[in-house]
């Protein structure tokens, strides 16, 4: 098949009168002028953090754990599949027998947010029903003061981070 080629021609030199009145520059300035008025009418940016843009439903924030949406039971069966597929090896699970006598539940479950690359592979691996036990939350503001604060334990994974008040620490 012949390759369809398009030569990119060099523009011809504008006529003398246009060059004398700096025509090309004025042409460009017209573009910026139109944009200026448009930006005044409908600004494109928002004043973060006072205003926040809505997140899309599929947005992948840091992974968290959840319980059964109706019964509130713990969903995780401690099958270690998320731990295995995680490309960054940032999930750590230790199990204990489930109190009901059937199966297992996690005694320790930590996700190292410092290493997590928010890929979502763990969610694809999780086999629980009706929803996956591990899910990509919409949390994205992750600033913490110390490195060890990035290791999210069971409590944080279920209930989220305690509200941090930023400012000078006494």
């Amino acid at each position, binding site marked *: 098949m012949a*390759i369809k*080629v398009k*030569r990119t021609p060099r523009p011809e030199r504008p006529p003398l009168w246009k060059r004398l009145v700096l025509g*090309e520059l004025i042409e460009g300035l017209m573009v910026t002028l139109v*944009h200026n008025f448009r930006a005044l009418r409908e600004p494109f940016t928002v004043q973060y953090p006072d205003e926040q843009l809505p*997140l899309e439903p*599929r947005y992948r924030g840091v992974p968290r754990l959840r319980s059964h949406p109706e019964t509130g039971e713990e969903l995780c069966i401690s099958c270690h599949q998320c731990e295995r597929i995680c490309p960054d090896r940032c999930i750590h699970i230790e199990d204990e027998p489930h109190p009901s006598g059937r199966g297992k539940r996690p005694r320790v479950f930590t996700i190292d947010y410092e290493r997590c690359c928010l*890929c979502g592979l763990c969610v694809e691996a999780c086999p629980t029903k009706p929803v996956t036990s591990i899910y990509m939350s919409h949390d994205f503001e992750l600033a913490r003061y110390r490195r060890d604060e990035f290791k999210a334990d069971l409590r944080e994974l279920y209930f989220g981070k305690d509200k941090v008040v930023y400012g000078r620490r006494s």
Partner: protein
Amino acid sequence: MSEPLELQGADRDEGTVVLNMGPSHPSTHGVLRLVLDVDGEVVTRCRADIGFLHRGFEKIAENKTWTQFITWTDRMDYLAPVSNNVAWALAVEKLLGIEVPERARVLRVLLCEMARVSAHLLWLGTHALDLGAATVFFYTFQQREILYDLYERLTGARFTTSTVRIGGMARDIPEGWLDDVRAFADQVTKVIDECDRLLTRNRIWLGRTQDVGIISREDAIAWGCTGPVLRGSGVEWDVRKAQPYLDYDQYDFEIPVGTVGDVYDRYLVRMEEMRQSVRIIRQAIERMPDGPLNADAPKVVLPPKEKVLTSMEALIHHFIIVTEGFHPPEGEVYHAIEAPKGELGFYIVSDGGPSAYRCRIRPAAFVNLQVIEKIAVGQMIPDVVGIIGSLDPVMGEVDR
């Protein structure tokens, strides 16, 4: 102990000064360091020092399963993550001998071309910013913002998409998404035209770019340039046309080529490429067929969630793919795609294990960047900035 780069082979008596540019210089697009020998304002020698962003991706590929490595490819050419995902997935699929269904193929083309527009918009904004035209940057970044929102809706992430899977795609198209992509295509054409009006005939822009950093046709081939850098020098080569993958031969588009091979030609080529990409985006939206997204390969592709809970076989496949990965046959493959920067290829050697025995990445930006040592010589220092911009290196891909 070896001498530092700025002293190697330097002749102090010649009257030249060694000028260090980078690695954290705003116009070197990342962490590129150039050591320039200058005689007055004129560069007499240019040496590129790279490796500041080296993360050892080829070694990582030997230690991660085929699926896990997808998340790393995002971080190579981080301006067009989907292209890297697709290149890796196509290489592994070639090794496995599976082909994805048509819907996945069209979606991949659509995402790749959106990535091309996104990468070229960023290049246009920063290139113009480097050469003193700051306004263009705001217009192009506004469009990229819309693109990122579209990516976020489909993949869940704005930047590191990780949405391509070996044998298919991870997520299907959300409702109304295609219409928004079509609206974006209409809108971005207008912005490209506006940037065209701002720059293409602007006499300052012409003065800064024309006849600067000329790469001759022969040099471009000899140095192994690909992508817009090669086409700017007038060579008619595009992997999408020469070795069509993902049914690119069924799309109607042209490849732009330049005439002189200077910075201005590479600018014209990329501008035209964006327009052609928009054409492909429109055609891909029209073509988008219904049907499955994932290939029928139960040993490779994760089964759908409902099946895992009902069918024993699916559960076993799920468990094995997740915990162990899949085992492609032994062999070697090379698959290249036309990424925004040029030919991006993966050369994989497999010993039949769950990860690559050896993976060699052929990055476009790395190869294109070398030529700077030749073309910067004899140019003024401020022109080096324009040359870097026109070669469009992404250090994530150069250093890997």
